[in-house]
């Protein structure tokens, strides 16, 4: 299932392919693993693309459900001769540094999380706050009731960045708009990312109070927010990938105003590409300027405000607007 | 009905070997034998619970084969087990109709069931109230439910496995009059007991089983003495609980004054109970079940906190001592319900040796226990008290009831005791073991032990006690000299010498109120 790339390296493009074929990429996912139609799948898409276009062989592994063996996955990949090795998700923070010390000759790449001081660890981060800022702008422009909301998975650093960016975006357009903020789990607790029922109840209440657009960085729980939006005939904004495309249900599609895109796939692909080309894989912060974060237009619901969105986007890129990760 | 050549083997044991038993219509047929002789096994075979390895059963001349109790029930055989088979949390009605429910559509037809039960109850004088919860009923009531269960299913042959072991004399009489009615109605009754006098009194014929085989059938019980029967059973003489000379001293070992214990809503369980037990004295407590004996025992052992009154052990006030401290100070305890209170059934004998004495050397201690010492002691008890079991590592549950009882007594008496509190020490024990237990009690008494003896066996009480107290409704109503009192006189004190109202009905009423309250909580959440 996961060795598609191994069996038939796509005949792909010359030049790059020649060097790519000797490269064995390893990837360790976040809990949930390949097939989560979200964060992990986005990384997998980048990996698959590297297989096709660069001709690399690769192997990917998923952690146990308690996430206890992330370090083992990295070691398993390193022992298997893979290089570079990617770790998907904040939780590889620390673990990857430790393993990187054990395998100084292997290039490690982490998606998300704080910077690392190790030579052989590169960290790819995303300016979620910038993308979220645009979502806040979109919500502020689209709201008719002057009330918008957030239904977030938990109160971790990443989700807080989503929330903070969104709020700044709303305020930039119209400070008088009310913003409600509800989280499903306390602190770092991940349960809120797998509780669609809770998300739906929370979203329903918001819609009944007059909120007409909800931003929902809550992983698998998002579908609950979409259900509530569809039922109430109001909007929801998805996260990570273009959820209009992935939600799979025409009824729910109608409720998804736009999605904040986090291009994990490009980050994965590009870092592998850099590695193959012999370049030094460096920690990079993907943001609006390099399309590392952005927004989707599927459904065409925000076609009328893309100009304004792009205007704000440019201001952020130009540094005229600074978006903070924290409130 | 006839059993021929029945043989049944269990791992390592032949419970029945070539047993023959014929039961006629309309007779009460008693089966007697030592503990472990194979009586219960035989009855379970008859009731389809076990399959015999050899031999045949025939009913009305036709050979039958029972795969399960269901088949036996269909053939008109019903059994009242030695340990009651009742669901405590069910009503009388539910217990009786279970497995043979009248129905109205998909519903259980409670009205029809109630009617039939009342009818049966009336016909055989069982006095059942269908809607009472079983857990609130006395042992005798439970027994009548068991009998009703069998009759409800139209049984023609009724098996009663040791029905009298747990009954007081009045209840035994009531049971026997029930049996007489059954016999009169043409039913056959198979009746197992260790009490040979009562067997002679009630049975038309007696079959004696020894070590798994039938050794004799006595056609004329009245003409056979208990001594002869005992000889057939164990090859020894019938023991008596007679004590010879008094060993009572002047030293008061245990004293209770003004003990009182109130129940939640009903009448007082104990009221101003005052007595003294001296070294070398056996103080017997007589009373119909439910008149405060259990509570008194529990108060002495520290299992219940009295509301008022003092308890002294020698010179010490032990009223506020926790239970384990009392044990450590040398109070031995033979509880009423050995199965549930005295033994860890799933634990080996050596662990059971420790139970209650885990704080006392040599096997127990303040912090540590010594398994090797406990094993050695368990072995000693087994030897000295003739506990028949493979060894100290045998699980207590594998012992027959009689052997369990001997072990418990051995355990309690093998420590240096100051006081022994014994409740029904020979209940359900065969004659051989009975005499051994009595001997031990006498020896200990001679050595200066102060004993509190509660028993439903009046002969035992009269024979062993130096002083006899009668408890009625939680009060001591009489202090008697056993040498001068007859069982009849004692019986009249026990039932409330002055009043006409029987004591048992008193307890029945108290339970009635409680039951009403329970029925409420029950309903509330339904």
């Amino acid at each position, binding site marked *: 299932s996961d060795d598609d790339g191994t069996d038939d390296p796509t005949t792909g493009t010359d030049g790059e392919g020649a060097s790519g074929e000797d490269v064995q990429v390893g990837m360790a996912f976040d809990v949930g693993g390949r097939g989560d139609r979200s964060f992990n799948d986005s990384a997998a898409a980048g990996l698959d693309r590297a297989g096709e276009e660069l001709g690399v062989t690769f192997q990917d592994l998923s952690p146990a459900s308690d996430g206890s063996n992330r370090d083992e996955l990295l070691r398993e990949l390193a022992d298997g001769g893979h290089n570079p090795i990617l770790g998907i998700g904040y939780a590889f923070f620390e673990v990857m540094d430790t393993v990187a010390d054990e395998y100084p000759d292997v290039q490690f790449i982490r998606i998300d999380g704080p910077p690392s001081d190790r030579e052989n660890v590169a960290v790819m981060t995303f300016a979620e706050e910038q993308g979220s800022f645009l979502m806040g702008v979109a919500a502020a422009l689209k709201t008719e009731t002057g009330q918008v909301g957030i239904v977030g998975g938990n109160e971790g650093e990443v989700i807080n960045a989503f929330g903070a960016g969104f709020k700044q975006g709303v305020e930039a357009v119209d400070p008088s708009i009310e913003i409600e903020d509800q989280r499903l789990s306390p602190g770092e607790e991940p349960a809120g990312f797998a509780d669609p029922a809770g998300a739906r109840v929370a979203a329903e209440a918001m819609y009944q109070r007059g909120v007409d657009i909800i931003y929902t960085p809550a992983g698998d729980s998002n579908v609950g927010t979409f259900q509530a939006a569809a039922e109430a005939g109001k909007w929801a904004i998805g996260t990570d990938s273009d959820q209009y495309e992935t939600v799979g249900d025409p009824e*729910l599609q109608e409720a998804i105003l736009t999605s904040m895109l986090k291009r994990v796939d490009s980050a994965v692909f590009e870092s592998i590409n850099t590695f193959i080309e012999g370049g030094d894989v460096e920690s990079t912060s993907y943001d609006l300027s390099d399309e590392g974060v952005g927004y989707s237009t599927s459904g065409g619901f925000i076609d009328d405000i893309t100009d304004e969105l792009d205007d704000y986007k440019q201001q952020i890129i130009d540094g005229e607007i600074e978006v903070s990760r924290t409130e | 009905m006839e059993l021929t050549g029945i043989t049944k083997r269990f791992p390592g044991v032949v419970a029945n070997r070539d047993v023959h038993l014929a039961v006629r219509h309309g007779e009460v047929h008693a089966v007697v034998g030592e503990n472990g002789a194979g009586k219960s096994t035989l009855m379970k075979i008859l009731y389809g619970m076990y399959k015999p390895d050899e031999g045949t059963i025939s009913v009305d001349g036709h050979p039958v084969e029972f795969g399960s109790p269901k088949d036996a029930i269909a053939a008109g055989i019903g059994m009242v087990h030695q340990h009651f088979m009742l669901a405590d949390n069910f009503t009388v009605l539910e217990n009786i109709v279970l497995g043979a429910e009248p129905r109205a559509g998909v519903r259980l037809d409670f009205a029809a069931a109630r009617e039939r039960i009342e009818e049966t109850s009336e016909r055989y004088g069982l006095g059942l109230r269908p809607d009472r919860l079983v857990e609130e009923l006395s042992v005798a009531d439970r027994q009548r439910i068991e009998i009703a269960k069998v009759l409800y299913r139209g049984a023609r042959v009724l098996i009663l496995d040791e029905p009298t072991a747990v009954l007081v004399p009045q209840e035994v009489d009531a049971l026997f009059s029930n049996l007489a009615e059954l016999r009169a109605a043409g039913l056959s009754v198979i009746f197992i007991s260790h009490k040979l006098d009562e067997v002679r009194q009630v049975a038309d014929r007696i079959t004696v089983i020894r070590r798994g085989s039938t050794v004799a059938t006595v056609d004329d019980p009245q003409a056979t003495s208990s001594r002869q029967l005992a000889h057939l059973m164990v090859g020894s003489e019938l023991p008596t609980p007679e004590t010879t000379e008094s060993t009572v001293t002047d030293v008061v070992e245990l004293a209770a004054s003004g003990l009182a214990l109130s129940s939640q809503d009903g009448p007082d369980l104990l009221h101003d109970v005052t007595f003294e037990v001296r070294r070398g004295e056996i103080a017997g407590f007589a009373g119909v079940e439910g008149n405060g004996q259990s509570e008194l025992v529990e108060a002495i052992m520290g299992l219940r906190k009295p509301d008022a009154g003092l308890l002294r052990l020698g010179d010490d006030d032990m009223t506020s001592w926790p239970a384990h401290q009392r044990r450590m100070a040398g109070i031995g305890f033979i509880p009423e319900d050995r199965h549930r209170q005295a033994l860890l059934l799933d634990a080996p004998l050596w662990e059971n040796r420790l139970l209650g004495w885990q704080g006392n050397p040599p096997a127990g201690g303040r912090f540590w226990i010594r398994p090797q010492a406990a094993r050695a002691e368990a072995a000693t008890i087994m030897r000295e008290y003739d506990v028949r079991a493979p060894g100290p590592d045998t699980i207590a549950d594998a012992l027959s009831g009689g052997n369990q009882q001997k072990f418990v007594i051995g355990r309690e008496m093998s420590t240096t005791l100051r006081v022994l509190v014994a409740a029904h020490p020979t209940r359900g024990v065969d004659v051989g073991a009975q005499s051994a237990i009595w001997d031990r009690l006498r020896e200990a008494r001679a050595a200066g032990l102060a004993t509190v003896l509660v028993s439903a066996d009046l002969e035992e009480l009269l024979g062993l006690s130096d002083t006899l107290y009668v408890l009625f409704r939680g009060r001591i109503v009489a202090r008697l000299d056993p040498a001068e009192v007859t069982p009849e006189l004692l019986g009249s004190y026990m039932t409330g010498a002055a009043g006409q109202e029987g004591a048992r009905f008193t307890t029945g009423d108290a339970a009635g109120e409680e039951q009403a309250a329970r029925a409420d909580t029950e309903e509330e959440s339904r």
Partner: protein
Amino acid sequence: MTRPEGAALRLSRTRRMLLILALGFVALSAVRVITGETVLTSSGTARAMLILALPIGMCALGGLVAERAGVINIGLEGMMILGTWGAGFGGWHYGPWGALLGALIGGAFGGLIHALATVTFGVDHIVSGVAINLVAAGLVRFLSEAVYADGAQGGGPTQSPPIGSAASFSIPVLSSGPNLLGRLEDTDLPVLSDLGGVLYGLTSGLTAFALIALAMLPLTWFVLWRTALGLRWRSAGENPVAAESLGVNVYRMKYLAVITSGALAGLGGLMLVLFTGSYREGQTGGRGYIGLAAMIFGNWRPGGLAAGSGLFGYSDAVRLRASSSAAVLALLLFVGILLAAVGVWDLYRRRFVLSAVLLVLAGAAIVGSLALDALPSEVTTMTPYLVTLAVLASATQRLRPPAADGMRYRRGEEH
């Protein structure tokens, strides 16, 4: 069944319960008026309560059915997981009714394994349940990888394709059309508007499946306490040896009970899947365990477990629907009043120490709820657990599990 002796008392007892319930509701209404937190009694909260309570309630009912037959079922979570997967698979192929079938089969399959292990092979009930929870979590992943491997229509290793939604309806006149209850809710009268809100919430936006699940409560009660089958069923949990001696096939009863138990847990899973439109890995989130707790909370009785699930669902609904932690503070005030009432009652019953403790707690809750502006978010998210614990601690429990609950029963090995 009528109990002549208890009848008079029973009536007054039922009335007392109703009275307590009514007083409690008035107190809740008062809290609502004082704090202005309409979320406490709004129709939305009532509806959300139903939605959040039903999955738990079905698991609790499943637990009840198994334990009444003497089999402890800690595997409810696993059976519920299998139910959600079955619902996703069945719903994908045949819509909501297919989901119902799939959920029942999925849950019942878990029950069958549990029955096989505990009844036929005499494995310790708790071990078997824990093992089933382990196996179920892994199994659904396996199945998804096999069935949705090609990403069929939005399915994947962690989710099923969307299954379509079930039609919903409201009770005519009361909750639609003239919508009497809805209007009552809008009146803003104390007590009446609260009552209107709660009843409106419970009678509108219903689905056939919610009704089926709700009907399981009285149905289970009826089967267990009013039919011959139920009597035999319970006898297996009270005294299996006695039951067997009367010709009851205890093994069959236990099998039936445990399989039914699984199916009910599966039904609970269905409620979750229908509510969110598709199966998602991990969406049960430990609700099977909460169901077990609710059943014990309810003292092994349908009414009690409904109350337990309802309480949990209610507090969960309040905290999820609250726009700020003020609503949770209002709930805290209510709990404080509750504790105070019980404390005073204990004082009256002369249980001084207990009453003192309760009154101190009550005081803390009341003062806290009035003095604080906000609660840490960690506390608000824990609301349902805290409230359940507080209610349990204030109500003295005389638990009465079935007598032979959890015991290994082997035919012919009785003592």
